[in-house]
C-alpha cells in the first residue's frame, strides 16, 4: 500500500512538472492543444493525489502501523473519527491535503477560466502546476506520509489529546481551503500579466475566487477561536499566537482586496494596488504555512534543523519574484484610467480602509516575526506578546469599525455635502445616545463604552441602509415590508450581502469588546458543599469523582450553579490525564447565554476532596459565535452569482440626447 502511495505522489509530481512546462509553452506559442495537454496532466495529477489520499486514509482507518505517519498519529484507543482526521493532524498529511485541495481548485479554476477568459488557461495551468510541484516535491522527498518503519509498533502514539475535538476536526481543513484558495487568484493575475492584453490584470475574474478563500479563512479563524475557547481551558479565544497570526495576515490583506476591487470594477482604478494585494495574499498564505510547518516559531534553531523551512522560503521568494516581476513588467499598462473625483466619496473611504487593513497586517507580521528576527540579529528571541498587538491593532480595528459605518453612507464618486448631514444625523445620534447612556449608567472603562457607542453608530447605519432600500422599493412597487426586504437583498446581493457580513463583524466586535473589557475571574478552593460567588452566579462544589475513559483518567468536579435563588442545574468540570502520553486536557463547565458565559475550570484538587476552581464570567461571548453565523449568511448571499444585466437599449440618432437611453433595471 505504501508503495502505491509513493508511486502515486511521484507520478503526480512528474505530471505537475510536465503541466508547468506545457502551460508555459502553451502560453508562449498560444497553441490550444498544448494547453489541453497541460490541463489533462493536472487532471491526472489530481486523480493520483486522490489515490495517495485514499491509501493514507485506509492506512489510518485500519491502523497500519508500518507507516510511520500512522504510528505517530493513531492509537488503538483513539476513536475512528480522529484516526481519520489524523490525515491533517500531522505535517506530512496536512501537506498532502494542501496538494489535494490545490488540485481540486485548479480543475475548477481551469473550467471557469476557460469559459470566462480562455487566453488565461495556459498561465493558470502553469502557476497552479508550479505550486503543486512544490508541495509534491516536499511530499516525495522530505515529508513523505508513506515512510515505513521496519519494526512497526503494536500501538501508535495517537494524536495530541487537545486535537481530539470536533472543532479541531473541521478547523484545519477550513483554514486550508482558505490558504490554498488564494493560489487561484494569484494564478489568474499572473496569467493575465504574462499574457498581456487584459487591462484589468485578471483581477475581476479573480475576485470571486478570492472572496471564497476569504470566507474559508474567516471560518477557519472562527472555528479555531471556538476550539481554543472550549478545549484549551484558559477562558480566552485569541492569544496572538503566531499560528493564529499566520492565518490572520492573509485574511486582513484579502479583506482589503474585497473592498478595493469594487473601485476597480466601477471606476477602473487601483488595478496596480489590487494586483499587489492578490500577490501579497498568496505570499502570506505560503508564509503562514511556512510558519506553522517549519518550526521557526519556537526557535530559529529549529528552523535551521528543519529542511522544510528552507524549501518554503525558497518557494516563497520564487513566487514573489514571479508575481512582482510580472507586475513590474506590465506596470505601465495597469495605470488607472480615472482619478478620485472628490475626497469625500465611497472610493476614498475604501482607500483609507485599505490603508488601515494593510497597516494591521504589517503590525501583525512585525509582531509575529520579531522573535525570529531578534534571535537572528541579536542571538536572543524577544517575544513582543499580546500587549504589543493590543496597542497597535486595536486602534486600527476601531478605525476600520468607524469606516464600516461611514462608508455605506457615502455615495460613489462624490458624496453630496447637502445630503451628508441627513445621512449622518440618525446614526450619529444613535452612537452619541448609546455612548452617553452607557457612560451615564456607570459603564467603565470609558474606552469600552465609547467602543460600544461606535458599534451602535455602525449598527444604525446598516439598519438605515436596509430601511431606506425597503422604503424605496415599497414606494415604487407597493410591496409588503418583508417582501421588499427579501427582494432588495436578492436583487442587490453583493451590496446587501456585504452589509450582512458587516453586521456579523459588528456582532463579533461587540463580543470582543464585551468579553475583553468586562470579564471577571476568581480562584476558589472549596470543600464539598461550599460555594463561591462570581458576578450574579453562585457555584456550589458537590464533590470530586473519577472515571477512566478513552485512555484517560478523568477527575471530575461536580458543580451546581445558581443565579440568585434560581437553580441553573448540575455541571461538571474535568481534568483528563492521558496515561500513555502524559498529556492533560481540560473540559470546562460552561453555561452560555447571550448576556454572558459562566466558565469554570477545575484547576486542582487535594486528597481530602477539596477542589480549586477557576471561575470566569465572560460577557457577550455568544455574540462572537453568532457573528460567525451572520457572516456566513452574508458571504453566501454576496457570493451567489449575479444575473447578467439585460439593459433596455435604445441607441439614439446622432444629435439626440442620450438621457434615458440606458436603464440598468433600477432597484
Amino acid at each position, binding site marked *: 500500500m505504501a508503495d502505491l502511495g509513493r508511486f502515486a505522489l511521484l507520478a503526480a509530481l512528474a505530471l505537475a512538472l510536465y503541466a508547468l512546462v506545457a502551460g508555459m509553452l502553451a502560453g508562449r506559442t498560444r497553441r490550444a492543444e498544448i494547453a489541453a495537454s497541460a490541463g489533462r496532466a493536472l487532471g491526472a495529477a489530481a486523480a493520483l493525489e486522490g489515490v495517495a489520499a485514499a491509501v493514507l486514509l485506509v492506512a489510518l482507518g485500519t491502523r497500519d502501523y508500518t507507516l510511520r505517519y500512522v504510528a505517530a498519529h493513531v492509537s488503538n484507543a483513539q476513536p475512528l473519527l480522529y484516526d481519520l482526521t489524523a490525515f491533517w493532524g500531522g505535517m506530512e498529511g496536512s501537506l498532502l491535503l494542501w496538494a489535494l485541495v490545490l488540485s481540486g481548485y485548479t480543475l475548477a479554476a481551469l473550467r471557469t477560466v476557460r469559459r470566462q477568459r480562455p*487566453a488565461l488557461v495556459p498561465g493558470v495551468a502553469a502557476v497552479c502546476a508550479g505550486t503543486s510541484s512544490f508541495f509534491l516535491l516536499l511530499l516525495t522527498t522530505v515529508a513523505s506520509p508513506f515512510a515505513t518503519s521496519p519494526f512497526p509498533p503494536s500501538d501508535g502514539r495517537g494524536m495530541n489529546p487537545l486535537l481530539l475535538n470536533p472543532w479541531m476536526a473541521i478547523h484545519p481543513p477550513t483554514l486550508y481551503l482558505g490558504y490554498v484558495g488564494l493560489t487561484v487568484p494569484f494564478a489568474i493575475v499572473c496569467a493575465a500579466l504574462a499574457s498581456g492584453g487584459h487591462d484589468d490584470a485578471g483581477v475581476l475574474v479573480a475576485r470571486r475566487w478570492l472572496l471564497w478563500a476569504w470566507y474559508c479563512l474567516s471560518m477557519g479563524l472562527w472555528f479555531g477561536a471556538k476550539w481554543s475557547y472550549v478545549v484549551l481551558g484558559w477562558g480566552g479565544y485569541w492569544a496572538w499566537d503566531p499560528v493564529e497570526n499566520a492565518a490572520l495576515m492573509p485574511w486582513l490583506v484579502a479583506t482589503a482586496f474585497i473592498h478595493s476591487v469594487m473601485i476597480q470594477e466601477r471606476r477602473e482604478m487601483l488595478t496596480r494596488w489590487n494586483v499587489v494585494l492578490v500577490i501579497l495574499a498568496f505570499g502570506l498564505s505560503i508564509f503562514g504555512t511556512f510558519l506553522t510547518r517549519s518550526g521557526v516559531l519556537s526557535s530559529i534553531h529549529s528552523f535551521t534543523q528543519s529542511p522544510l523551512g528552507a524549501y518554503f522560503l525558497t518557494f516563497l521568494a520564487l513566487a514573489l519574484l514571479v508575481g512582482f516581476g510580472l507586475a513590474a513588467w506590465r506596470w505601465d499598462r495597469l495605470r488607472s484610467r480615472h482619478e478620485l473625483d472628490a475626497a469625500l466619496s465611497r472610493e476614498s473611504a475604501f482607500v483609507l480602509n485599505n490603508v488601515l487593513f494593510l497597516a494591521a497586517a504589517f503590525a501583525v507580521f512585525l509582531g509575529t516575526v520579531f522573535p525570529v528576527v531578534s534571535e537572528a540579529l541579536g542571538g536572543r528571541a524577544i517575544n513582543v506578546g499580546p500587549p504589543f498587538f493590543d496597542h497597535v491593532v486595536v486602534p486600527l480595528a476601531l478605525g476600520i469599525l468607524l469606516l464600516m459605518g461611514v462608508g455605506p453612507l457615502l455615495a460613489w464618486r462624490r458624496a453630496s455635502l447637502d445630503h451628508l448631514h441627513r445621512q449622518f444625523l440618525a446614526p450619529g445620534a444613535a452612537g452619541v445616545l448609546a455612548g452617553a447612556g452607557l457612560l451615564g449608567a456607570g459603564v467603565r472603562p470609558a474606552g469600552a463604552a465609547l467602543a460600544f457607542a461606535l458599534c451602535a453608530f455602525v449598527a444604525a447605519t446598516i439598519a438605515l441602509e436596509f430601511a431606506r432600500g425597503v422604503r424605496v422599493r415599497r414606494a415604487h412597487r407597493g410591496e409588503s415590508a418583508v417582501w421588499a426586504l427579501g427582494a432588495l437583498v436578492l436583487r442587490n446581493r453583493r451590496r446587501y450581502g456585504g452589509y450582512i457580513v458587516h453586521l456579523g463583524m459588528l456582532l463579533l466586535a461587540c463580543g470582543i469588546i464585551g468579553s475583553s473589557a468586562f470579564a471577571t475571574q476568581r480562584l476558589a478552593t472549596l470543600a464539598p458543599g461550599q460555594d463561591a460567588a462570581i458576578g450574579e452566579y453562585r457555584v456550589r462544589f458537590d464533590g470530586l469523582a473519577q472515571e477512566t475513559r478513552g485512555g484517560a483518567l478523568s477527575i471530575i468536579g461536580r458543580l451546581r450553579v445558581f443565579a440568585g435563588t434560581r437553580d441553573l442545574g448540575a455541571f461538571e468540570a474535568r481534568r483528563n490525564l492521558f496515561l500513555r502520553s502524559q498529556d492533560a486536557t481540560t473540559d470546562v463547565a460552561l453555561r452560555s447565554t447571550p448576556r454572558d458565559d459562566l466558565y469554570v475550570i477545575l484547576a486542582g484538587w487535594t486528597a481530602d476532596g477539596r477542589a480549586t476552581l477557576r471561575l470566569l464570567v465572560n460577557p457577550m461571548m455568544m455574540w462572537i459565535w453568532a457573528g460567525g453565523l451572520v457572516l456566513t449568511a452574508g458571504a453566501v448571499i454576496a457570493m451567489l452569482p449575479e444575473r447578467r444585466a439585460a439593459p433596455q437599449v435604445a441607441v439614439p440618432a446622432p444629435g439626440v440626447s442620450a438621457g434615458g437611453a440606458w436603464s440598468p433595471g433600477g432597484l
Partner: protein
Amino acid sequence: MVVLAAAAALWVLAPLRRPAVAAEEETEREGLLRERDSISRSLRDLELDRATGKLSDADYAVLAARYRARALAVLRRLDAR
C-alpha cells in the same frame, strides 16, 4: 503501476497528436460585454444612492450622464461587430 503510468501518459499526450490549433483569445466583444456589465452595475448603484438620499438629483444627473455616454459608446461598438 507501469500500465497505469503508460495509460496516464497516453491520455495526457493525446491532444498533442491533434493538428495545431491557435488558442482562443479573449475577443473584443467579451471585453465590451464586461465593460457593459460594469457600467450597468455602476448605474444601478447610482440609482440606489439617489433613491436612498445619498446623492442629490443634480449630482446624479451629472454622474449618470457620464455613465450613459460611456454605455452608449460601448453599445455602439457592440452593435458594430
